């Protein structure tokens, strides 16, 4: 039997479930029989879902919201982390009664708790402003009318500190009469045999027998009272997963789905493929068309099996619901690639030149000025400024440039993809936040979503080794969004990526959007294979493009706009894409060096774009980067 790859969280309340799998580095000889069959890894909760989704783990102690997002997992019997009534470690705390709060800071480290908090607030018809904050900041920010959702040790430490406290599990029990399950062991389909499942039950028995030591150890580390921790582990937390707990879990998932916060997955102890409750494709499509949230597994099914027209019609229905006025927007802007010197050598890129190459360039102010004036003269509203990672260009160069552009031309500045921000932060030894703040102060308006490629590290390592990881990319966007900057999200598929990985990409974008709401629009296109690029094309073609865009429209229920990428697909396919979920036709561009180096040379003007929009049955209008209409649609 090969070792099972198991991933757990380091939280105190999870320790009894996995501790027996751990090999104490100090006493490796004590490695027991069950630890030998298991390769245990501990990680933060967000990493858990990623590892399971990207096949780096077989079983994870997954928070139940993340499990619903993935879908098609098998639940292991009898083990969970839950509470029947008060849980003590998950609570909204405040100086005033909850219904008097104007805002609540959310510790986003537990998505499950956040969803639960939203449900409980909605049930009370309360709608305070919710905002994300790190735990320390959330607590520090508690004020007259501002509360905080606190989780874990801080919640236990501050148990008596605030006069008002809503214990979420207790409130859930009062509402539903059911226990609340926070996390459980979830396995990838067919990854765990029934015999292996027993390992987890043995581990739980051993772990529960050690709760006293666990409490003592944690007390020593955290400064919390040992007795309080002991009662927390033995009385507040319940480690069983029986019929009542399952009913509580089902209730949570269906309430979450009804509120549009979770996919409507139903847990099962059976292997998902054999599950009788698996919905038909028709059901999935009509649920998606109605705006229900799809799980990752459901998205994969649609991408693999959904028929051309049904995907298109469902995506068109979503587009119609989100944009009932039948308006398709486009922007007049210009893509300026300020330098082609780049240190990353991505294998799909025909544009870059290495440092010191004779064909390397940095655009002069004179050339740039001419280009910008043309944009202004043509009625353009912004420039998209992107370039290679050129180590000769320091942050001051960008700050000067941005200030000059803003003062001379007054164009919107949609500039520097996350990769370039990270490059600057490394070059200058500054945090991403500082880089963004300085650029924002110099005139940066929004961040383009380029360079996302596929936000799965297996793919990124293969096609763009030197580029940032998926979580680094997402972190830049997170910071930018929290500062109030907006950005687009993109996906370039069709290299080594699989349908599962494309959907995983969409789920990551959707998760961040749940957190920040900062993405304005989503665009996708396939890898443009041409001379100068160094990877063989994978899945591509016009049908796949239309299907992929349609599935993206169905998955990304929290992103307002989907744009057709006519620059890569051609204006004809771009027009048809307006019936596959897109409500934006991208930009009338003067130039687009990166794609045109790879041989794609589509170029059309505003009149031709409007004609295509009209012919597809829509009204057209120009927009700015925030998708505000600049004229009345015609």
């Amino acid at each position, binding site marked *: 039997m090969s070792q099972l790859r198991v991933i757990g969280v380091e939280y105190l309340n999870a320790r009894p479930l996995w501790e027996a799998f751990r090999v104490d580095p100090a006493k490796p000889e004590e490695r027991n029989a069950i630890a030998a069959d298991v390769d245990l890894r501990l990680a933060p909760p967000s990493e858990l879902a990623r590892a399971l989704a990207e096949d780096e783990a077989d079983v994870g102690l997954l928070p139940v919201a993340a499990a619903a997002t993935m879908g098609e997992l098998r639940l292991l019997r009898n083990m969970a982390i839950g509470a029947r009534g008060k849980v003590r470690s998950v609570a909204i705390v405040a100086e005033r009664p909850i219904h008097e709060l104007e805002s609540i800071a959310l510790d986003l480290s537990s998505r499950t708790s956040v969803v639960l908090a939203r449900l409980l607030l909605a049930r009370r018809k309360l709608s305070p402003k919710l905002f994300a904050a790190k735990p320390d900041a959330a607590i520090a920010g508690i004020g007259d009318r501002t509360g905080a959702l606190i989780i874990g040790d801080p919640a236990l430490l501050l148990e008596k500190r605030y006069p008002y406290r809503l214990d979420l599990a207790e409130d859930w029990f009062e509402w539903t009469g059911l226990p609340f399950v926070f996390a459980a062991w979830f396995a990838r389909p067919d990854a765990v045999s029934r015999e292996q499942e027993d390992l987890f039950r043995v581990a739980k028995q051993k772990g529960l027998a050690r709760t006293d030591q666990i409490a003592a150890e944690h007390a020593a580390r955290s400064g919390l009272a040992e007795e309080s921790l002991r009662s927390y582990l033995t009385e507040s937390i319940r480690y069983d997963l029986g019929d009542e707990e399952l009913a509580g879990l089902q209730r949570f998932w269906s309430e979450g789905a009804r509120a549009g916060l979770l996919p409507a997955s139903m847990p099962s102890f059976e292997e998902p493929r054999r599950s009788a409750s698996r919905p038909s494709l028709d059901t999935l499509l009509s649920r998606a068309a109605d705006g229900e949230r799809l799980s990752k597994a459901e998205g994969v099914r649609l991408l*693999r099996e959904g028929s051309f*027209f049904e995907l298109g019609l469902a995506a068109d229905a979503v587009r119609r619901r989100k944009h009932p006025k039948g308006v398709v927007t486009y922007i007049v802007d210009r893509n300026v690639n300020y330098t082609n010197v780049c240190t990353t050598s991505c294998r799909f890129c025909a544009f870059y030149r290495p440092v010191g190459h004779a064909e390397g360039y940095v655009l002069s102010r004179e050339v740039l000025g001419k280009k910008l004036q043309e944009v202004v003269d043509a009625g353009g509203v912004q420039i998209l400024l992107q370039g290679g990672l050129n180590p000769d260009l320091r942050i001051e160069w960008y700050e000067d440039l941005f200030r000059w552009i803003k003062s001379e031309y007054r164009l919107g500045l949609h500039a520097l993809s996350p990769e370039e921000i990270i490059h600057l932060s490394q070059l200058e030894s500054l945090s991403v936040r500082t880089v963004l703040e300085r650029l924002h102060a110099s005139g940066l308006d929004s961040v383009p979503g380029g360079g996302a490629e596929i936000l799965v590290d297996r793919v990124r390592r293969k096609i763009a080794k030197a580029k940032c990881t998926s979580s680094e990319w997402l972190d830049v966007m997170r910071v930018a969004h929290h500062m109030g900057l907006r950005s687009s999200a993109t996906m370039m598929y069709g290299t080594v990526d699989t349908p599962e990985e494309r959907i995983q990409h969409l789920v990551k974008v959707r998760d961040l959007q749940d957190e920040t709401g900062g993405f304005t629009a989503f665009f996708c296109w396939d890898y443009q294979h041409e001379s100068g690029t160094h990877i063989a*094309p994978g899945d591509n073609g016009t*049908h796949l493009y239309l299907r992929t865009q349609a599935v993206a429209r169905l998955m990304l229920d929290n992103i307002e706009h989907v744009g057709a990428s006519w620059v890569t*697909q*051609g204006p004809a396919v771009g*027009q*048809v894409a307006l019936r596959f979920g897109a409500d934006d036709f991208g930009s009338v561009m003067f130039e687009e060096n990166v794609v045109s180096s790879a041989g794609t040379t589509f170029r059309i003007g505003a009149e031709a774009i409007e004609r295509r929009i009209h012919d597809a049955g829509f009204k057209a209008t120009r927009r700015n980067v925030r998708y505000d209409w600049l004229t009345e649609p015609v």
Partner: protein
Amino acid sequence: MLLDSIREKVRSGERLTFDDGLALFNEPDLLAIGQLANEVREKRHGDRTYFNRNMRIEVTNVCVASCLFCSFAKLEEHMPGAHTMTLEEAWKELEDRKDDPPTEVHVVNGLHPGLPFSYYEELLRGFKRIDPKVHLKCFTGVEIHFFAQHYKMTYREVLERLVAAGLDSLPGGGAEIFDEDVRKRISHDKATADEYLEVHRVAHSMGLRTNITMLYGHIETFAHRVDHILRVRALQDETNGLQAFIPLAFHPDGNGMKNLPAPTAVDDLRTLAVSRLMLDNVDHIKAYWVSLTPDVAQIALRFGADDIDGTIVHETIYKAAGTRSPGALGYDELVRLIREAGRTPIERDTLYNVVREHPKARAPEASMKVRDRKRALEVLS
């Protein structure tokens, strides 16, 4: 709703009317029309999608007609760019394909006032000498009408002499738009609609199979398109000699209507779909990739079309009008285009006999590999 009643009619096999056709052209929900056309297409052909190995030879661009939409023909022989092949030059085109012989030679020409009729007879005989098995699909209804006038024969006499020389079937070009007013404005000095249809009627009565086209997207209205399609349907009721209906998108570059924009992809797809729905008596609807571009032709395989034409080689008429399509698609590229659309590629001969059936790509459309798509899309300089 009107679309619902049309859907009912289509599903119960009831014929669509002129008003139904007009309603379909005006229906904004493109996918609903496409889906319905696809139902009809799949009922007739399943996933089967036809293509052939053909070559185009245009022996002369000298033409007495002056069609507004044409960027190809030159009026007179001595004008710059005018060219007429010698018989040897024309035959050599086929001889040069010895290693990769086409199953069909498709000849379409200008209406040349200065050649003897024997030129055309010899042309056909020569092709058959080179390859007795090759199918000769030559001369549009417009050319046959011109031959009859110019050489003072009846349609039947013209066709009989050409058949004796090797003619196997007629291509569908020259139909343009049948409506008399539109036809007068865009091509006043060639076969009228009735004359064109009469040529096909006579050809069918002699056992020749033919195709008919429709040139759309210029000055005609949706009503003119429906009228055109209905005239095709009426002829087919009478003769049953049509194999395929081929909507052709108007391309504006370098011709008398260069101020008009070309039809958009949505219009292309809608026109194919409505054609499929209206023509309940015609077997095949062809998405002519040269006029549509390979990308749109591929999507068209979901909008009622079951044929994507052939490997072509040497297409010059659309090239002169500025199509973005390449001049030729390789055999393998056509197979890939069809497979990526989730269909089964069937190599056919001109009469739709199966030459070779290729396997359909394994079920999920999303996991197919289509390489070289961009090569197929390369823009002509």
